[in-house]
C-alpha cells in the first residue's frame, strides 16, 4: 500500500493516534508551534451557539492540518498559513490566546486591516469552510452537520476516498 493511501485509510479507521506517534516532519513541528493560535482563530470565526456548527465541535483544526500538509497542497500557501499565525502571535505579543472574545475580535479586525492579515484571515476562513462543508469523509463535516445547517447536501455518488484515489 502506498504511504499516502495508508495515511488516508488510517485517519478513516481511527488510527490517527498511532500515526501521530511517528516522527514529526519539519512542517509538523512548525505547525505545532502555531496550532493553538490557528485553533483559536477558527473557534472565534466559528463559535459555539451559531446556526452553523462550531470549529471546536467539528474539529476543523485537524482538517486544516490534513489539508495543508497534503503533498498536493500549494507549498506557498502551506507556508503562509504558518507564517500568518506567527505574525498574529507577534503582533499581539504572545497574548492572543489568553484574550477574551471581545479582545480577540479587536485583535483580528485590526489584523484584517493590513493586506497581509486580511489575506491570511481569508485563507483560514476558506480552510475552515472547506472542512465544515466538504464531504464528511474529510473529517470536519461530522454527521453532515455542516450540510444539515444549510439544508444543502453534496451529490451522489459520494467520494469513497479523499481526493479520489491518487
Amino acid at each position: 500500500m502506498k504511504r499516502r493511501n495508508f495515511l488516508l485509510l488510517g485517519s478513516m479507521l481511527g488510527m490517527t493516534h498511532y500515526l501521530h506517534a511517528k516522527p514529526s516532519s519539519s512542517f509538523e513541528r512548525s505547525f505545532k508551534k502555531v496550532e493553538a493560535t490557528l485553533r483559536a482563530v477558527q473557534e472565534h470565526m466559528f463559535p459555539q451557539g451559531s446556526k452553523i456548527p462550531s470549529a471546536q465541535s467539528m474539529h476543523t483544526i485537524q482538517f486544516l492540518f490534513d489539508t495543508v500538509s497534503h503533498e498536493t497542497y500549494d507549498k506557498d500557501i502551506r507556508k503562509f498559513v504558518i507564517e500568518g499565525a506567527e505574525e498574529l502571535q507577534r503582533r499581539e505579543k504572545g497574548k492572543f490566546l489568553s484574550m477574551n472574545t471581545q479582545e480577540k475580535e479587536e485583535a483580528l479586525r485590526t489584523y484584517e486591516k493590513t493586506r497581509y492579515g486580511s489575506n491570511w484571515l481569508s485563507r483560514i476562513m476558506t480552510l475552515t469552510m472547506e472542512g465544515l462543508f466538504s464531504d464528511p469523509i474529510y473529517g470536519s463535516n461530522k454527521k453532515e452537520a455542516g450540510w444539515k445547517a444549510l439544508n444543502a447536501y453534496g451529490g451522489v455518488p459520494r467520494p469513497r476516498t479523499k481526493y479520489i484515489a491518487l
Partner: protein
Amino acid sequence: MKQYDVVVIGSGASGGAVAHTLTKAGYKVAVVEKGRLIKREEFTKDELAYCRRDIVTPNLFEEYHVIEEKVDGKWEGTPTYDSGWSFWNGNVVGGSSNFMSGMLHRMHPDDFRLKSKYGAIKGANVVDWPISYDEMEPYYLKAEELVGISGKYEKHPYEPPRSTADFTQPPTQENAVVKLLDKSCAELNIKSLVTPRSVLSQNKGHRKACYYSNFCGSYGCSSGAKGSSREALLMPALASGNLTLLSNTYVKSLHTSKKEAVDYAVVVDVLTGKEKQLYADLFVVAAQAHESARLLLNSASEFHPNGLANSSGELGKNLIFSAGGSGQGELHADKLKEIRFEELMQTGLFVNRSILDWYFIDHWWDGTFKGGSVEFMFEHQNIISRARKNSEENGQLVWGKALGEKLTERFTKQKSIRFEIFNDWLPNDNCFVSLDKTHKDKYGMPVGRLRVEAHPQDLKVGKYIAEKCEKVLEEMGAQNIYSSVSSSPPQNLIAGGCRFGDDPKTSVLNRYCQAHDVPNLFVADASFMPTGGSVPYTWTIYANAFRVADHIVKVLKEKQI
C-alpha cells in the same frame, strides 16, 4: 516503422470524434492523452477534489502558461503559477467535455459569413469561413444523435435550420422556475427557448439517462448521460478493437524529416519519464486551441523554422475566446411569484432556457450589429463556494454568529438565478499564442504565452445584452440583481490560432482542417475557427471534427498522402 494508421493528440471532443469515425472505418488509431483515465464509476461529486484542487488539471508549478495583459499601456506577462489563473480545462481522458454543463447551440448560418454580413470592423480581423452552414449541418446532426443532445425544437427567426424535425431525445426535466421565467419573458415580449443540452434524458446504449445529481457542470457524470468524448465516442471506439488509448502520455513535438510530412510524434510517459516515438501515416492535433498551436510552434525544424505548418506566419494568431459575461439575482421565499418556494428549492432539475432574440441586432435606435445568445441557470450548487462567497460584506469577512445567520438565510430562504451571455470575441492582433522565450514546463518544453486583449465591440455587445437580461430578472421579481461583463477571457472557451481558409498565405489549415504545408497533418479542435459565433463552441467542435474525420477517411482510402 509504422505503429498506427493515425495518431490523435488529445482525447477531448474533437479527438474523440476523429477517433470514433476512424476506428469505425477500420483504421488503427492511437489517442494520446496527457492525463489519466477516470472511469465513469470513479467519478464522484466531491467538491473539494474536483472544484477546489488540481485533481484533473496539472499542477501550475509544473505546467503553466504566461498570460500577457496590458498594464498602464504596456504588455506584462504573468505566469499562471503566480496568478493562479489556470488555462487548463480537464486534462484527463475525454478532456474538458467531461466537465461541461452541456448547454449547446449550433452556430447560425450567418456566423459562417460574418464579414459579408456586417463588413469589416476596425481593429478586428473578421473573415468569412471557407465553408457554409449547409456543409456543417449533417455533422451538427451527427453530433446531436451520436453524442446525445436532448432538446425541443421551437421556431425562432435566429434558430439555425435543421434537416430533421426535432431532437431524438426530449429535454431533460426542468425546475418549476421555468414557469416564472417563461411568463416573465412573455411579459417583456421575449421568446424563451428550450436549451439543447448534451445530457441524455433517456437511456442510450451503454449510457444511462440523467439522474439529476444537482452537480453537473465541473463534475464528471456518473450515469454516462453527459455527452463527453469519453462516454459517447472513446468507449465505443475502444470496443471496436481499433483504438489504442495512450493515457498519461505527453506529446513534446512532431518530428519532420522532410518538408511535406510528419513522421513521428515525440512523446513522454508522464509516470516514468521515458521518452519514445510514435509513428503513423497521419497525425491529428486536438489538444485544445492554445495547446495545439503551442505544439506546432514547438515542432519547428529545419524544414519549418517558424513552427510546423506555419509558412503563412498565422500559427497562433487570432486566438479567440467567448466574450460576454454573466449576472444573477436572488429569488426570495417571501417575494416569490407564480411558483411555490418548495418547487423552486427542488434540487437537480435544469433551468434549460435560452434566449436568441438578441443574436442579431437591427434596431432603429440601437443600430445594426451582431449580438449574442443567453443561457439561464441556477447559481452553481457547490456548497463550499456558495458559503465562501457569502462570507464577506463591505470588504470585511463576516464571522461569528453573524456568519451563521447570513449563511442559513442565504441557503434556506432564497435561491439565485443566473444568466450567461455568449457573444463573439472579435479576432484581433492582440490576441494570440506564441512560445515563451524563458519559461519551460517540467518536460523542458517552452510554455505558451497568451496575449489576451478583447476588442471594445465585445464589451459593448455584452453590456447591451446584460441590460436586457437584468430586466428579465427584475420581471421575475429577483432581488439584488447584478451583472458583470468584462474583457477578461473565459479560459474554458478558447478557439482559433490555426485558422482554416482557402488561401495558404493567410491561413494555416485548408477547408478540411488539413495543414496547407503538411498534408499528413490535421488540426481537429476549435483552432480552425476564424470567428467563434455567439454560442458555446462545443457542438461546433464535435460537428467539425466529424466532418474532418470523414475527409481523413477519404484521404486514407484514396492514399492521398
